[in-house]
């Protein structure tokens, strides 16, 4: 899904300059815990977050995430935008909640990041599944 389409679906705004709206995102992840972002995403993921500090951009950089949507109408401080522009990461804003922002994109066909072996292992151990 192109960022252009994402923007339409969430009725969002672009926060960074020189944003390439033809950028393809392959899946989506909604998280406010940065370690979860690092653990449960793949390269090319679109991140939805309610956190707006510069570390969200750092985290995205490490995880190979090229675009972030800030939900619940939250707007990032200038440091966050400056760092994102330096790293070539697109920042978008959505006035909708995390649930609705993710829901609009999921309904339009943007898949999730899927299941991860690390969490499945704990799941199987706890519930005694094979």
């Amino acid at each position, binding site marked *: 899904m192109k960022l252009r389409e994402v923007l339409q679906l969430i009725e969002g705004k672009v926060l960074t300059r020189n944003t390439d709206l033809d*950028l393809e995102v392959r899946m989506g992840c909604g998280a406010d815990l940065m370690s979860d972002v690092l653990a449960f995403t793949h390269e090319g993921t679109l991140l939805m977050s309610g956190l707006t500090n510069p570390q969200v951009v750092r985290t995205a950089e*490490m995880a190979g995430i090229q675009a972030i949507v800030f939900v619940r109408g939250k707007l990032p401080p200038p440091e966050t935008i400056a760092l994102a522009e330096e790293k070539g990461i697109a920042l978008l804003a959505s006035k909708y909640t995390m649930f609705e922002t993710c829901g609009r994109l999921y309904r339009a066909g943007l898949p999730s990041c899927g299941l991860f072996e*690390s969490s499945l292992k704990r799941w199987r151990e706890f519930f005694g599944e094979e």
Partner: protein
Amino acid sequence: MVSTPLATQQKREITRLQELVYELRVRDAMTTRVITVTPRTTMAEFREVLRANRISGTPVVDEGRMVGIISIEDLIKALAAGELHATVGEKMTPRPMTLYDDEPLVHAVSKFSSLGYGRFPVINRQGDLVGILVQGDIVRALLRQLEVEYHEEEVRRYRASHIFEDILADQVTLRFRYQVTGGDFERAGEASSRLKKTLSRLGIHPRIVRRVAIAAYEAEMNIVIYTDGGELIAEVDPKRVYMLAVDHGPGILDIQKAMEPGFSTAPDWVREMGFGAGMGLPNIQNCTDEMRLESTVGVGTRLEMVVYLDASGQS
């Protein structure tokens, strides 16, 4: 849904091109050797000037001052009217639109498209004529700059990725050392960011780079959150990336507990920033092939991490 690497590359170049239009100045693109005529030059002489220099227009200068501009269109009109004996002064456009030499190139681009002129004389802030700009100059300047930048990054990447082949030794290990400042959330992640870029330049597979970067970042954040500072050291050889995150902080009381997903001793302000959820160390374990954590309370913590380069690179 998946874009090809080539398309992504092209998009990046186009974005860079847009940036360059803002970064480059008019003087970076203009022609400095300006051919001029005077108001007393006849249209017949003007035709010879155009032909001899293979240009399509010139500024008109009288006693050092620019008084107008004249182009091939004015010549064609004069030819049609049989007025080749007329002077440039009679046929020129007086007081032409100009560009300043220190204006960003993007101003020139918008003036070309909004006014439809073929050329602009360029003046400095003192009003002296210092150059002339046609649309082709802009394209040429952008391509030249892109080529220079592309070449620089290529050279860096080439140099770095061939370093193991070019160095003659039985064993080569590259060692990178980064300082991490405790409590400095502003700059937290810079060490990992620089390491990530370095590894990419070395030509290491992107999936491996991602695993190393995530492990390094979690380790760096731990140093920033819990200690007064420390170091991140990375050693790269053709087989593996070895990392050591070391600090002289308070130490970890119960390592086994610290390794449990969800266990955390982070203060609230750290949690508010999206960290300290007790997933850092388990994340590092997932991203690395080997991990060794040693800690003594009151002395410090040593975290060793290894990622093998020949692995499939799964995350």
